[in-house]
């Protein structure tokens, strides 16, 4: 691990993540997420599904996997058009800052709108990190952004939200370890698909996803 990992997983890295709630805005609207307890539950299910998949894709992309093939695998694991769009939008944002932060020829191999996890893997490699680091950043980002979105939307105590995220660390590590050891996960949560698709049709939303 090098400090590049801290930069990559920093919520202040200007890659566009702050405008995405990872389903939190709609989960709140549908009454599934109301307080610290249900936030923890929501983050767990996100981590175990889209977080695990992102970790696997990021690790594979970082480890020199065929990026076009991985992009197709990401699509197959993301049938929701809204989630695909959110992922590719964030991928583009990460490429924009990543190119400046860690110049590398690998960026040119990515499509114009890569899935976020794949861009993350390339960023990790360009920053001198390994697949496990990439997986960890992906797993961590799958919960850190949504956690702060919930904090903003529900006016939650930021200390509570920070504690929730911090205490998920062992689970984040576990997801990252397994994503590297067991090959590409495909875990999915149909609830997240539904939330994303309903959210995308709303006119009164604060978050992009």
């Amino acid at each position, binding site marked *: 691990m090098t400090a590049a990992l801290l930069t990559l997983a920093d919520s202040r890295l200007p890659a566009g993540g702050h405008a995405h709630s990872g389903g939190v805005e709609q989960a709140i609207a549908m009454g599934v997420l109301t307080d610290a307890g249900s936030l923890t539950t929501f983050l767990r299910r996100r981590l175990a599904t889209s977080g695990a998949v992102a970790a696997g894709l990021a690790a594979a992309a970082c480890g020199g996997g065929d990026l076009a093939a991985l992009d197709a695998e990401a699509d197959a694991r993301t049938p929701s058009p809204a989630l695909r769009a959110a992922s590719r939008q964030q991928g583009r944002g990460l490429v*924009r800052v990543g190119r400046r932060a860690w110049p590398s020829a690998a960026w040119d191999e990515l499509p114009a709108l890569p899935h976020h996890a794949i861009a993350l893997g390339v960023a990790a490699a360009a920053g001198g990190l390994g697949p496990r680091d990439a997986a960890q950043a992906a797993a961590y980002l799958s919960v850190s952004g949504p956690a702060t979105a919930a904090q903003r939307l529900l006016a939650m105590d930021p200390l509570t939200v920070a504690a929730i995220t911090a205490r998920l660390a062992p689970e984040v590590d576990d997801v990252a370890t397994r994503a590297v050891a067991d090959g590409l996960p495909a875990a999915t949560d149909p609830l997240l698909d539904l939330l994303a698709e309903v959210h995308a049709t709303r006119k*009164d939303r604060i978050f992009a996803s």
Partner: protein
Amino acid sequence: MPPDHNLDDYVDAPGAHRHGGPLRVGLGGPVGSGKTALAAALCRTLGEEFDLAVVTNDIYTTEDADFLRRNAVLPDDRIEAVQTGCCPHTAIRDDITANLDAVELLEARHPGLELVFVESGGDNLTASFSYGLIDVQIFVLDVAGGDKVPRKGGPGVTAADLLVVNKTDLAPMVGADLDVMRRDSAAVRGGKPTLLISLRDEPTAAAVADWVREQIRVRVPA
């Protein structure tokens, strides 16, 4: 192997990553000060002369974009609305990704684009645009906010390339002294221009439009 860390290779001058392209004008200022009204006025006044488009950063709805569609004679494909995730100032200053995406989308859609207005969500006096996103910025204040506001300063008031004090028609109603506002603005702005206008009385925003024309003129190499 970490890449060779030569900072000089990575950091370029502000705005240097943009070569040509449309002039990007930020419109910032507190809630309700008249940013959208000014954007609409500028689109109407400058729309014949320049190929232009607008990005809106509404906090909650597509209200501003809808208003522009109705009032600025701008077709839908020249207006992009971005979501700011509860943080309007983040979207124009700290993480400008969504706004860059929107501007680039408009540029790709309209290759001849000469002018893009980026309206921020209504925020407070500390909100200002990153120069990674825009070339020049206009901060719009509202006379009804009180004649003390320019004196209070803040990056929006002190550093904006143009300060617009809007709704001068309301000065008698709210007991605001326009001379005080003019004097205080001059005092904190170090010579940068301030315009006092009323979009209600003068809906073409001619003075602001002149300033924008000048920005385009000085930017294009002779």
